[in-house]
């Protein structure tokens, strides 16, 4: 079930300070000719003034901090000795001086490197070395915080929009499924906003091709992989025989290894990505299911035959243990087809390991195949859509307060 929310495409960021210039404020400045007594008077006259830059010609040469200055002047005889002397006696001779064009982020690094005083005293802003104003530590922290919030909002918005794209990619399969296999269930739940699980359903005149795909990783890298895999699969299905899932898988393996350069020597920083997957072909006239699988098990539930008291039966068919496309998977590896006639009323289920391996319950162990099979048997008589509700409900109750570990896809159909 795919929630159909569509956030707007990412917008341009609202105007936030980008450089020191935008933090600039004007203030009272002093020239070195001023006496310390003059500074004392200024601080008395302007109680909101915390610092006074000292400017010689146009260049800042220091910063007088109110508290430091007042403390010095309050000491015995200091005022008598220094009162009528240049105000530079008690200034900080190494204030943080920042060019107007300095980006906020770089400014914050410089402020941190300058230590506590840059945050408490602020900094002097210059253009080509000439004084133009001051910036406060508070405004800098404020700007950095907003900038970070803005950045993470933009990242989230872009991921949310990526999710719109990924969901759109799934839509044709969902639409065709609804038309051709109305008795089905499909839960696609990426762990994060986007994910590495994928699902493909294609119709042909004599049957259906179905793929459930679990790419390495999750989140954004996983989603990248799903798009690569989906386009490879589409290309193969256009030219090759969908009735031979093993051959399609074998071709996919070669294509992935070639495209991601996972066919040669082991490079430490090269990629080693691929997918676990099950490809199925269902011949509708003969009710014959043919499948090939890389690590994804298939479950076939057959209802009891009429007028017998026997229980429904479930069969588990494990996939081959070779993943598709990985560096360790040989280029020449070939998968094998398996097939089964589906009895009337029989249903087929596949799920990615995000479902089977999810820890939960009192013991915090994996959901597991045994529990899955019991759940499938328990609800086998229901319409698949309703089974899906029960299955996911059981799954969520089992997961309880545990974190979701991986993307989850659960698919079932009863032709």
């Amino acid at each position: 079930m795919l929630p159909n929310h569509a956030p707007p495409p990412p917008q341009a960021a609202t105007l936030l300070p980008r450089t020191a210039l935008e933090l600039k404020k004007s203030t009272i400045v002093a020239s070195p000719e001023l006496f310390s007594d003059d500074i004392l008077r200024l601080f008395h006259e302007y109680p909101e003034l915390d610092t006074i830059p000292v400017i010689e010609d146009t260049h800042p040469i220091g910063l007088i901090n109110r508290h430091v200055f007042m403390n010095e002047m309050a000491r015995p005889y200091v005022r008598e000795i220094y009162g009528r002397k240049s105000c530079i006696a008690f200034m900080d001779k190494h204030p943080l001086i920042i060019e107007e064009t300095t980006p906020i982020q770089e400014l914050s690094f410089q402020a941190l490197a300058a230590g506590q005083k840059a945050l408490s005293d602020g900094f002097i802003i210059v253009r080509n070395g000439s004084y133009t104003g001051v910036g406060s530590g508070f405004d800098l922290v404020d700007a950095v915080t907003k900038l970070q919030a803005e950045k993470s909002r933009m990242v989230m918005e872009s991921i949310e929009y990526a999710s719109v794209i990924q969901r759109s990619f799934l839509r044709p399969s969902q639409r065709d499924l609804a038309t051709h296999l109305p008795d089905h269930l499909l839960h696609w739940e990426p762990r994060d906003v986007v994910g590495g699980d994928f699902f493909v359903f294609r119709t042909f005149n004599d049957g259906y091709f179905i793929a459930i795909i679990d790419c390495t990783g999750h989140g954004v890298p996983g989603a990248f992989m799903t798009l690569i895999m989906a386009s490879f699969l589409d290309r193969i299905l256009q030219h090759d025989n969908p009735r031979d899932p093993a051959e399609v898988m074998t071709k996919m393996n070669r294509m992935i290894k070639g495209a991601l350069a996972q066919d040669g020597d082991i490079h430490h920083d090269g990629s080693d990505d691929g997918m676990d997957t099950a490809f199925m072909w269902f011949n509708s006239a003969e009710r014959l299911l043919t499948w090939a699988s890389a690590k994804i098990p298939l479950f076939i539930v057959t209802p009891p035959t009429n007028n017998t008291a026997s229980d429904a039966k479930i069969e588990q068919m494990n996939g081959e243990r070779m993943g598709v496309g990985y560096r360790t998977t040989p280029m020449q590896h070939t998968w094998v087809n398996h097939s089964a006639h589906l009895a009337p009323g029989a249903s087929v289920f596949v799920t990615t390991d995000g479902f089977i391996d999810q820890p939960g319950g009192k013991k915090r162990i994996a959901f597991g195949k045994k529990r899955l099979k019991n759940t499938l048997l328990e609800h086998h008589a229901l319409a698949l859509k309703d089974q899906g509700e029960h299955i996911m409900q059981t799954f969520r109750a089992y997961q309880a307060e545990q974190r979701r570990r991986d993307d989850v896809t659960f698919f079932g159909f009863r032709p």
Partner: protein
Amino acid sequence: MLGVFKMQNLKLEATSTSPEVDFQFSEHRLALRGESYPENAAAFFGPIVEALNGYLEQTQNQVIEVIIELTYFNSSSTKVLFNVFNMLNFAAASNTINLHWRYDEDDDTILEFGDDLHEDFPDINYIPESFAS
């Protein structure tokens, strides 16, 4: 073994996404416990695998006890684990490797994984050990 054993033991506390690593090389006892799904498994395990490799290269005629008690690992961690077992399987030519594969008695998923490992790495002595919890 002759000479001074120079290998540093390796001990990392478990986090919510990475296992406890307790490699007592001096005791020939290597343990992994917990869950493993770090964002970048290759980056997390890189130094661990390197240390293990260094240890195995200079170890011969030893009985090495490997204790694995993992309750969850994602697919990229699985690949790293396979590398590790591959190294141990190789080292089994000149050492005895006892793999204590510990799993909850109800955890068929972990047991199945261990059984698969046994199939792939026959030179390691596979010792499944279930525990009740």
